């Protein structure tokens, strides 16, 4: 029997992938041995990220790690992938929302419609600004050209931010060549890991989302062709990767804020930041008005956050 081989492309570049995906794939290949091998490719390596969804749908690429937003998947849930403003506060919120509050089912349904298998969702880091010049007030955000997620960009543009989308691997250089003034794409762990901390000077401690939501997907036919035990193994390795990120980011964020030397921290006072939080509430309603599915997801976010607030500390502080 010949070895099954898959090509998988992640939206992360090699430096980041070393943490967020390499270990899981190595593990999979080691356990699956001669039965199946996954070849991992990094951001834009085989196909540009913008074409990633279509490539997976057609089977040019067999599996993908990405958020819905970056790869522009043609579903109703795309806006919620990546950083949907203020939807979650902690990285544990994401798996709870998916496993206990019904998002898994919605995602599964949406992706089945477009011929793609949604395997599982995981949480990553919070979304902060890393910039060349300091941001101490909302005024300072005006006119800054920032690399960010499409939906986050749509949201932030009301504060004068100019969102820019470029291939992930080009970001560091784009900051250096003046195409960008900063980045709102990750927490501080990633800023240090991928080198962005070397080209920016300031880190804004306010975030617009507490955790990124991203997924593993596969081409539906390829997935169905797998024997059940390999499907299970794949899921287990995905979960392992989700677990790794839970502690890697959580510990990393705190450590680098306190001990990092490459970026200076700045903060916008809570009263002022409240404007942004209020704007998010309006943004949610706008999105909910766009379709039934979106309304369903927004409703879950609302009920979930209300419940967390009721639960009190340590779930929410005030």
């Amino acid at each position, binding site marked *: 029997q010949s070895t099954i081989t898959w090509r998988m492309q992640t939206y992360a570049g090699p430096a980041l992938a070393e943490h967020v995906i390499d270990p899981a794939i190595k593990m999979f290949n080691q356990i699956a041995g001669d039965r199946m091998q996954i070849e991992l490719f990094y951001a834009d390596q085989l196909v540009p990220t913008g074409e990633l969804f279509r490539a997976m749908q057609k089977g040019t690429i067999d599996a993908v790690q990405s958020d819905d937003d970056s790869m522009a998947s043609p579903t109703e849930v795309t806006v919620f992938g990546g950083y949907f403003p203020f939807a979650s506060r902690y990285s544990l919120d994401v798996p709870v929302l998916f496993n206990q509050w019904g998002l898994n089912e919605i995602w599964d349904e949406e992706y089945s419609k477009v011929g793609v298998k949604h395997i599982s969702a995981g949480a990553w880091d919070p979304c902060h600004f890393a910039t060349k010049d300091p941001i101490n007030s909302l005024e300072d955000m005006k006119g800054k050209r920032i690399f960010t997620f499409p939906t986050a960009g749509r949201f932030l543009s009301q504060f004068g931010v100019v969102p820019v989308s470029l291939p992930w691997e080009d970001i560091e250089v*784009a900051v250096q060549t003046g195409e960008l003034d900063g980045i709102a794409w990750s927490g501080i762990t990633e800023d240090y890991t991928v080198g962005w901390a070397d080209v920016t000077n300031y880190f804004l401690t306010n975030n617009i989302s507490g955790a990124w939501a991203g997924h593993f997907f596969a081409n539906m036919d390829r997935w169905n062709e797998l024997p059940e035990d390999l499907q299970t193994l794949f899921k287990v390795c995905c979960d392992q990767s989700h677990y790794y990120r839970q502690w890697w980011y959580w510990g990393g964020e705190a450590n680098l804020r306190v001990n990092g030397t490459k970026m200076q921290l700045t903060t916008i006072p809570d009263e002022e930041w409240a404007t942004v939080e209020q704007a998010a509430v309006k943004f949610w309603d706008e999105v909910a008005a766009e379709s039934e599915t979106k309304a369903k997801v927004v409703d879950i976010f609302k009920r979930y956050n209300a419940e967390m607030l009721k639960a009190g500390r340590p779930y929410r502080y005030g």
Partner: protein
Amino acid sequence: MSQEFIAIFMFASMMLMLFTGQRVFGAIGAVAAIAALALWGTGGQDIPFSAAMKLMKWYPLLTLPMFIFMGYVLSESRLADDLYRMFHVWMGPVNGGLAIGTIGLMVLVSAMNGLSVAGMAIGATIALPELLRRGYDKTMVTGVIQAGSSLGILVPPSVVLVLYAMIARQPVGQLWLAGIVPGLLMASLFILYIWIRCRLQPHLGPAMEDAHKVPRAEKLRLLGAGALPLIIFASMMLPFVNGWTSLVESSAIGALAALVASILKRRMTWKIFEDCTKQTLAISCMFMWIILAALGFGAVFDGLGAVKAIENLFTDQLGLSPWLILILMQLSFIVMGTFLDDTAMLVIVAPLYVPLVGALGFDLIWYGVLYTITTQIAYMTPPFGYNLFLMRAMAPPEISLKDIYRSIVPFVGVMLLALAIIMIFPEIALWLPGYVYGN
């Protein structure tokens, strides 16, 4: 099929296709398409097109038409004529002085365009006839022009360094600055060579008697010609290095500055303008289509596992020291460069080499300079060399192909020497970017 076999198969068929004389992009694209259809599996037929989407997102490519246009404006409108007279008058009285002056001219021309074609054209149209008339040795002359014009891609702006920057993901600003001192070093070595050679054999480059007769005031006035390239250079580089404009915006400013200068100097006619625009399209298309095909080739090559095979070969199987690997890579570039297209080579081979160079602990800015010099050598070495072809097309009939081939030998020697010096002393390249960007 094993990955090693695929690697060899794809490369060999590309070479074979190139030897048939089909257009470079067609040769590369066809191999990519066939391999994608035959070997990829489901959905392989989409890879060549997705390369087009990848190319669209490569925003630094926008600089390409700008720098090409800049070069054409410069050579077609004869903006460099005054510069040439300046060097002519000031350097003429020395043995080999006109040749030395031509190198100086090439340095200034390099600062105003991103390729070496403009330098070649200027050298061949204004310097070459004059040098021959003054009794300079023909192999000396063609060698000087080919070697000198190759500085065009080392002194900023440089298209080759922009392309390298995209592949290696390094900042263009630092790469450009890194090219300046090595460029000047190489120019000095050329000059040194010419000077020594002409001292030993004055008949190769006889001194010019009548240059003394030019009045002092006129001589000083001519010095002013040198200001133009500096202004154009500064209009582009200052906003860029200071971060006021981005790279692509600066390239547009540079192109505009050259155009405005040629209009102000009353050198621009509608005919010339149209011609520059047309040539820019032609050359830009040549580059873009090669890059398009090479990106497709690269993705197929990579997706079929051939990249892994080559990586294994270098890292695991050979077990060599970092320096030896580096030298081997340079040698392979020089060998490939003698019969492969440089842009295709960059897009296909550099993605294999560059991460390895980084992993071995070498500086990728420095390596960019080494790469560029290697490319320059490739332009000049037979059988396949763009600058050779250009020279052959532009040289007057009394210069034979053999003369052209012979003429580059000492200059390639000088370039190899420069390459070695910069390899041994990386500081030559790294000092300036470190100083300006402060790290």
